[in-house]
Each structure stands twice: as structure tokens, then as C-alpha cells.
């Protein structure tokens, strides 16, 4: 069936807590991402979320409102002081505020999962990655493609030569949202709307693009050498300076190009990545994925039984993790689509790694490299210029 021998079983990703005791975690940041983290951690056997912190009282109250036994703190410092039996911290604070909590947690001897991008400057990212490398604790960066079973399946096909010569790369992240928080207090608004602050925000390219650029870094084992960008406010004419629509072209050394675009003004096509090769293409959409083969590409035996979907003039083979097992059970159709949101797999790998079971999906050094690419893309969009990405910037010293 569909590349089963190369596919990580979904069951292998379920963590098993060492000695039966769940891992005691806390979450720093109770905004949208922090609450998503809380929701997923509650569903992972072997994880017990004991506390959350946020400097915003309203967000903290929302996060703890119905969560039984979840203790709330107004800062990371108070949380670390108040939770003597904590074992790990998930950092879901704003990007420019990642380094402080992550380093404090490492200093306190905790394992750390830090959302991506790792930091808002190359210096902070490098410093944090170095600190993580020097620590004996588990450190994971929230670049989710590397934990995604569908992406892992596609990558295994790519590494076995299915695409043949790479022709072009593309990615899109289209959403219909303002990025603005509905707050009436101006001081609170300024704090919560950090994504719209040109002094703090990495814009669409940094905040969103970093995740997608990392897909290609992981597939190719390569990083771009330069990036050019552009951006403008197309829809949300509310006085903002941060572009609500942006595009980048990332150039790799061999001439390969990644075309990326993102917008907060239109949701058509959502979020996806495309790798085009001379014999096949992948379209990856985080919870679903498809392979499109060229007419002259050799046919594999398993393809006869593969689940297919038609998109206008193309027919795609649906990428299904655990396809052989499901096909043997006559449940191949049920395998279409990931059984958990992408965030779940990354957190589950982290929890397992903290219990001594396996490795994290993305460590500090890979996280730093992709963060640098995101930072440079952000710079390119803001300046409208081509920005070089020297390889030495990607190193963690």
C-alpha cells in the first residue's frame, strides 16, 4: 500500500509516561495559541497541565475558568516560584517574549517546548538555541511539519526519489482575520496587538511563513541563500503599518525557488505547501496531503488500491498515514485526514521525549535555522529588497 514501510505508525507517536506518572507541565501564555496548547495537552495521556501564566488578567481568567485544578499566575517568575514540582514548560508567549521564559525554565531545570519562531532577533534565537544545546533538558521548537505523519509520509516518498528533479516550490497561507484583538483599553490593546506593532512584529513572513519555510528545509535538507519580499495593506485599512498581504521569493543555491504568499484578507486555499517535481508533485495542507503523478511516472503496485481525489483536471493520491493497516481492515477511507490537529503530534512527541521515549520532532538548532530564514523574510517584506542569508547566521555557536 501507500509507502507503508516508510511511514511512522501513528501508534508510535503516543507517549508512554515513565513509571506511570504523568509529566507535570505548565504553559506560559494564555492567548489563542496558549489555549490551543492547553486543549491538546489535556488530551495527551502522560501529560498533566498544572499551571498557566499570563501577564494579562483577562486572558488568564479565561484560561483557568473551567479547567479543574489549573493554577494561574501573573508571570513566568511567579509560576516558577509557585510550582516546585514542575517538569516542563510550554512557551506560548509573543515571539519577542520567548527568550526570557524559555531561559528561565531551562535555568530552573525544566524541559522546554518553545513555539516558533524561536525569537524575534537572530541574536536572541542564537542565544536561546545555544542555551538549550548546553542544557541537559529536552528542548523542542514548535515547527509542526516535522511531527506531522502526513508530511513524514510525503517526505519519505521524496527521499525515495518520487518527485525526481525538483522544479519549483510554493506555499500559501490565506486567512480572513484582522490580527487585531477586541480590547477597549488602549494600554492593553497595545500589548495584545503586538503582531501589529512594527517594532515588535515579524509580520506575516516571520510569524506565519517560518512554519511553512521549515517544511522545505526539512524536505530538502537545504536553506535558502537569499529572499526578496513585498507587502502592503490591502484590506484592513485601520491605520496599521504591518502588511496584511505579503509575498516572498526564497532562492536556493542551485536556482530552485520557493514562492510564498500570505494574506489576512482572503481565506481561499487556506494554508498549504506544494513541491513540484519532474515526475510527481505533493500538495500538503496540514491535515491532508496528496501526491499527483505525471503521466509518464512509473506506477507502483499499491497505487491500484490507493484512495484518490479529483481536483479539476488533476487526480491526486491521498496521502494516508498507517495506510496498510487501514487497508487491511477495510478502513482506508477512514484514514483520510489526520486524526489529531498538527499541534497534537508535536506536543505528544515532546511529552514522550521528556519521559525518555524517543526524540523531539524539532530541536533547538533546526529551530534556530528556520527562525533565521523567517527573520530574513520578514526583513525583505518590510524593506521590499532582496536580503542575503549568510550560512554563518544559521549556525549556533
Amino acid at each position: 500500500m501507500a509507502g507503508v514501510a516508510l511511514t511512522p505508525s501513528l501508534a508510535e507517536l503516543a507517549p508512554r509516561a515513565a513509571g506511570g506518572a504523568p509529566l507535570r507541565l505548565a504553559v506560559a501564555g494564555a492567548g489563542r495559541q496558549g489555549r490551543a496548547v492547553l486543549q491538546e495537552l489535556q488530551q495527551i495521556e502522560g501529560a498533566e497541565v498544572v499551571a498557566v501564566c499570563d501577564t494579562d488578567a483577562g486572558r488568564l481568567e479565561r484560561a483557568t475558568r473551567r479547567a479543574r485544578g489549573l493554577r494561574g499566575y501573573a508571570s513566568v517568575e511567579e509560576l516558577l516560584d509557585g510550582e516546585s514540582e514542575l517538569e516542563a514548560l510550554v512557551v506560548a508567549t509573543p515571539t519577542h517574549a520567548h527568550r526570557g521564559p524559555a531561559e528561565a525554565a531551562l535555568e530552573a531545570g525544566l524541559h522546554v517546548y518553545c513555539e516558533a519562531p524561536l525569537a524575534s532577533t537572530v541574536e536572541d534565537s542564537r542565544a536561546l538555541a545555544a542555551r538549550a544545546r548546553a542544557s541537559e533538558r529536552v528542548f523542542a521548537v514548535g515547527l509542526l511539519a516535522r511531527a506531522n505523519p502526513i508530511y513524514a509520509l510525503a517526505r519519505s516518498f521524496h527521499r525515495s526519489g518520487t518527485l525526481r528533479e525538483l522544479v519549483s516550490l510554493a506555499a500559501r497561507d490565506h486567512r480572513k482575520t484582522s490580527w487585531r484583538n477586541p480590547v477597549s483599553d488602549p494600554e492593553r490593546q497595545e500589548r495584545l496587538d503586538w503582531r501589529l506593532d512594527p517594532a515588535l512584529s515579524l509580520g506575516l513572513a516571520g510569524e506565519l511563513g517560518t512554519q511553512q519555510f521549515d517544511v522545505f528545509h526539512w524536505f530538502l535538507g537545504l536553506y535558502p541563500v537569499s529572499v526578496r519580499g513585498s507587502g502592503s495593506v490591502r484590506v484592513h485599512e485601520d491605520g496599521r503599518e504591518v502588511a496584511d498581504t505579503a509575498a516572498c521569493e526564497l532562492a536556493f543555491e542551485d536556482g530552485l525557488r520557493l514562492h510564498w504568499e500570505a494574506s489576512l484578507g482572503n481565506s481561499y486555499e487556506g494554508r498549504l505547501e506544494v513541491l513540484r517535481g519532474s515526475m510527481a508533485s505533493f500538495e500538503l495542507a496540514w491535515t491532508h496531503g496528496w501526491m499527483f503523478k505525471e503521466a509518464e511516472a512509473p506506477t507502483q503496485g499499491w497505487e491500484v488500491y490507493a484512495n484518490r481525489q479529483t481536483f479539476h483536471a488533476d487526480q491526486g493520491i491521498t496521502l494516508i498515514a498507517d495506510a496498510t493497516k487501514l487497508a487491511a481492515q477495510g478502513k482506508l477511507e477512514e484514514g483520510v485526514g489526520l486524526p489529531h490537529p498538527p499541534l497534537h503530534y508535536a506536543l505528544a512527541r515532546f511529552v514522550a521525549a521528556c519521559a525518555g521515549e524517543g526524540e523531539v520532532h524539532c530541536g533547538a538548532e533546526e529551530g534556530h535555522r528556520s527562525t533565521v530564514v523567517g527573520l530574513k523574510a520578514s526583513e525583505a517584506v518590510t524593506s521590499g529588497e532582496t536580503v542575503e542569508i549568510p550560512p554563518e547566521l544559521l549556525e549556533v555557536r
Partner: protein
Amino acid sequence: MATRFELVLEAQESAGPRALADEVFEELRRREACWSAFEPSSVVARLNREASTGWVAVDEETFLLLAEARRVFEESGGAFDATVGALMEGFALRGEGARGEAARDELKTPWGCGDLLLDEGRRRVRFARSGLRLDLGGIAKGRALDLAVELLRDHGVERALIHGGTSTVVGLGAPLGEPAWRVALGPGPAAPVALLHDSALAVSRALSRRGPDGGHLIDPRHGRPLARESTAAVVAPRASTADAWSTALCVAGEACPALPAELAALRRAGAADASWRPLSAELGAFQFPAASRPPESLQRA
């Protein structure tokens, strides 16, 4: 939920309310992603796949929703049952190809919310019988609206109207100068009117044959589609309560056990074909008799 949600907010300018609306709809989408039986990565889909073979940990909100569904099942004498998913599929009551063949013999498929086991201490769920399938369609939309209203209140909103698919609507506060939001159950001046002030209205209906607007209710007490036409509207402090109990009333009608005291009264305004069922001096619900025409889409009167 696969339905259209609409939010009415009063505001002096648009940027702030627009941002709030974004957040509300994002919350609704998050709930759909979590509770839809049709999303492969939803918690409900995962429970349907795994809970027959062992305990499954769920998030707090999902656990609370299931606990409420279980409670309504018990209080309604089984007229509301969140485990009829397999029956819905078996009788093809979902989607555009739904047939609702009432003539089909009882399916050999398990259902029964009594087999939904909840471990409150560890927030885990298990099915006591293999093959059980959750379908939270009769309560999840209401709960999602409750959480949306909670979000509005968190942001200081005192006046708003929000509905999902015109069958469940919440009136937060009242329009300026009015005592309540007025929601008509049907067209014309004689249509009954619900007055909503920090309360929710839900309407459920069943047609004996599947049509474009309904006819998709299972009678969980007998394990087959409801054979008679029926419509019920309930007003309650919370949308999840109204949602679930409108389904229960639609199914069981007069045979439904005593409804919980929190259900609030509907004010009738010259209703010609809807009967008022008093539960106490202040509480009641509308029950439309079988011969009556089902209400059209809700409209503000």
C-alpha cells in the same frame, strides 16, 4: 455544524467590533473542529474510533459537554440521546442523499447514552459497548453559542444577537430601548414571538419524510426515525439547554418527563397553531402539534 452563524453587534465604529466578531467566529470554528463527527481530527471522531476499546482523554470543554448530554439523556427519559450517530448513518439521515427510510427494520447497531462512561477524575471517556457513535448535533451548536456569548461578555458586550442556522439563537441583553430581543417563530403577524433577554431559543423539527428543511430526527427510545411531524421550541438561560431540550420535546412531546426548572416561558403573541405547554406558573415551552406547519426561518419581529 456546517451551518451559517450570524452575529449582530451594536457599535459606534467597526474596527473593534470587527475584531471581536473575528474572535467569536474563530471560537465557533474551533468548536466545530472539536465536536463535528465529520472532521477526522475532531475529538468526537477520535472518540468514535477509539472509545470502544479503552479510555480516551478529552479536553475540559468536551468533557463538560458530554456530561451535559448525559444529564439531558437521563432527565428526558432517553428522548435526547447523543449516541445515535450509527442510527443516523444507518438510516441515511445525513447529507443531501438522506433518505430517512422509516420503513427499514431496526438496525442492528448499538446506541444508548447510558453506555457513555465518563471518568470525571481523569477527564476520560469510554463506550461501554463497541460500535457506539457520538453525534452531538443536538447540543454542540448550542454549547458553541454559549461559549461565544461568554466571549462577548468577557469583552464587555452587553447587547448582541447571535444565531446558528436560524434554529438556535441567543439574545444577550436587549436592543437599546427595548426590553428584549424579539424573535418570531414563523412568518406573519400571528407567529409566536420569543422574547429573549440573556436567554436562548432553540427550535427542532421533524418531518415524516426527509425534506430540505428537516426530517432528520431519530427517536432514541425506539431506535428509528421519528415517524410523525413534530416541532418544538424551547427558551432557556443557556443555548445548550435549549438545543438539547427542543430535540427531546420534539421526540417525546407530551410524554417527556418534567423539564428542568430553568426553562423559561415563551410569550405567545396570537399564535394560531402552537400550543403552550405550561410546566409551572412561570415556565413552559412551545410544542407545535403534528398538524401544524413547521415554522419558517427565524426572523426578528
